[in-house]
């Protein structure tokens, strides 16, 4: 009984700890500007989408959102194009230096992106992709790719190689067997890692702000504009940033757990 009470107490505390700021942000972003600075009102008398609307359609937020989505999609596409075969090779084949490569991939994650961002902008300016979607997408690919290689490798190792071999025995080529047997079995995990990659790119702010000037991604745009705006705009920006990620995670939480932990059956 005591244990149960304690358990629920901890659960509630953790939930409050994480959710209170989020709820406060959302409420603040929906508070009419006239009431926001009124110290006698903690909760607004009515909610308004005015700030969010203004942020998106007057202050260039919508354009930044689209750029963010473009950047994320290109980065995911590139990462999976390279990372998926690499992850597959890492589990299915034995080759010399495999462990060294695995550790090398991990090592790249230990270098903060911000460190390479400055040299990167110099190179980008030379080859002419500074301040472009593709430029940011490439930098994000560098950030996401190691994650994709490692995580797809662990997802593929959760799909027994014998399923694939059975496909080959019964008349498929190796590639066909991968497409028709292994891929469908790995799909939930792969989808989860794609969404996670999306969020990684969506939330990334430092590199994006350094590499772009006019074509800013949403977080870079917000970082740049919100600092000089009234508070309720800052909160509106926070809401716009947080909601998509939270919705994604809510719908894919089951797969995300599979992806990180217990292998696929």
């Amino acid at each position, binding site marked *: 009984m005591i244990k149960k009470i304690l358990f629920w107490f901890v659960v509630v505390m953790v939930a409050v700890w994480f959710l209170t700021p989020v709820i406060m942000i959302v409420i603040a972003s929906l508070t009419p500007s006239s009431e926001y600075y009124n110290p006698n009102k903690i909760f607004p008398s009515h909610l308004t989408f005015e700030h969010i609307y203004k942020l998106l359609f007057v202050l260039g937020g919508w354009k930044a959102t689209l750029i963010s989505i473009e950047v994320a999609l290109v980065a995911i596409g590139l990462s999976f194009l390279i990372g998926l075969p690499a992850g597959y090779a890492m589990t299915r084949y034995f080759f010399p230096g495999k462990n060294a490569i695995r550790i090398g991939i991990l090592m790249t994650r230990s270098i903060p992106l911000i460190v390479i961002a400055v040299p990167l902008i110099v190179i980008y300016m030379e080859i002419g992709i500074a301040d472009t979607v593709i430029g940011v997408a490439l930098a994000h690919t560098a950030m996401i790719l190691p994650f994709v290689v490692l995580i797809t490798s662990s997802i593929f190792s959760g799909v027994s190689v014998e399923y694939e071999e059975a*496909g080959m025995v019964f008349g498929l080529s190796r590639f066909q067997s991968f497409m028709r047997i292994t891929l469908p079995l790995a799909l939930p995990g792969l989808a989860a890692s794609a969404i996670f990659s999306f969020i990684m790119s969506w939330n990334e702010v430092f590199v994006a702000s350094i590499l772009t000037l006019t074509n800013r991604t949403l977080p870079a745009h917000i970082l740049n504009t919100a600092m000089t705006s009234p508070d309720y705009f800052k909160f509106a920006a926070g809401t716009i940033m947080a909601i998509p990620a939270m919705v994604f995670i809510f719908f894919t939480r089951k797969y995300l757990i599979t992806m990180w932990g217990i292998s696929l059956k």
Partner: protein
Amino acid sequence: MAKVKIENLKKYFGKVKALNGIDLEIGDGEFVVLLGPSGCGKTTLLRSVSGLEKVTEGRIFFDDKEITNLPPKDRNISMVFQSYAVWPHMKVRDNIGYPMKIKGFSKEEIEKKVLWAAELLNISELLDRYPAQLSGGQRQRVAVARAIVLEPAVLLMDEPLSNLDALLRVKMRSEIKKLQERLGVTTIYMTHDQVEAMTMGDRIAVMLSGRIQQVGKASEIYHKPANIFVAGFIGSPQMNFYKVKTVSEGANLFVEGEGLKVPIKKDPNVDKLVLGIRPEHIYLEKEENTMEIEVEVYFIEKLMSDTIVHANLDGGSRIVAKIPGDHEFKEGEKIKLYIDKERIHLFDPKTERRLDI
């Protein structure tokens, strides 16, 4: 259906010689069992025949056509995997029909063959389930059904019964055997279970360390084991082995050692030998062509249908006898046993090969 010829097949994994020169011919429609202990190379051989593993050396033929370097899909084989490998994202119906779907058969043809195979294996009522909703035995039947829908040239099975409980295993043993006879498909069946091998195979190939030690009918392997390993591997309890020497007394030849002295007919031309006698060829009552020995009972195992007597010979060596029926012996009791002189085996201790005398 095809005959299979394997010529000097070698497969090395780095320094590990998983297959070390396999030669084997299998007739059209024959059921050959490869029997060997864990790690002897059974799976490796099967994977080489199926094309999932590239061989280091040697050649494989199906019906005089060399297939050594063909990819698995072009070999017209079927396989029942040790883990069944029934695809979890397909219903039983689709699992069984998938090999036909790959080959481009029409929906009606597939449906007909799936029903036929399901009927044959008694899984008709499971067709709309997913593999996760099946028991191990049912999953195994699905794997077999999937392997036979297309009437392959060669059917490969890798210890398909090893995951089943003892009762189901006995049942499936006869079912698979009957099924194979009905279909007449050339079959290579891997197992480490000698009872499975004895009861199912038209012929048995006994393997050890990447080599085939002996190929033959069950009776040949049991009565004329080619070497000490085969003699010891087949039969339960294991054959008794004794180090002996040849001695001659006048015109009569004997082998003698470790408290045993058994007459032999022909001079084996080696002085040191290994004598083997199976526990079931040692009797409690005197019979024709037997030789009496006196032993001291060490302990007994009562199986009710048989009594396994572990006893000490004069020289201190152990002898194991399998006596039909339920008998009572006391530890330390002196009893007389009778060795069947016609059923002894002699081996050369250097080559470990059988000596025919």
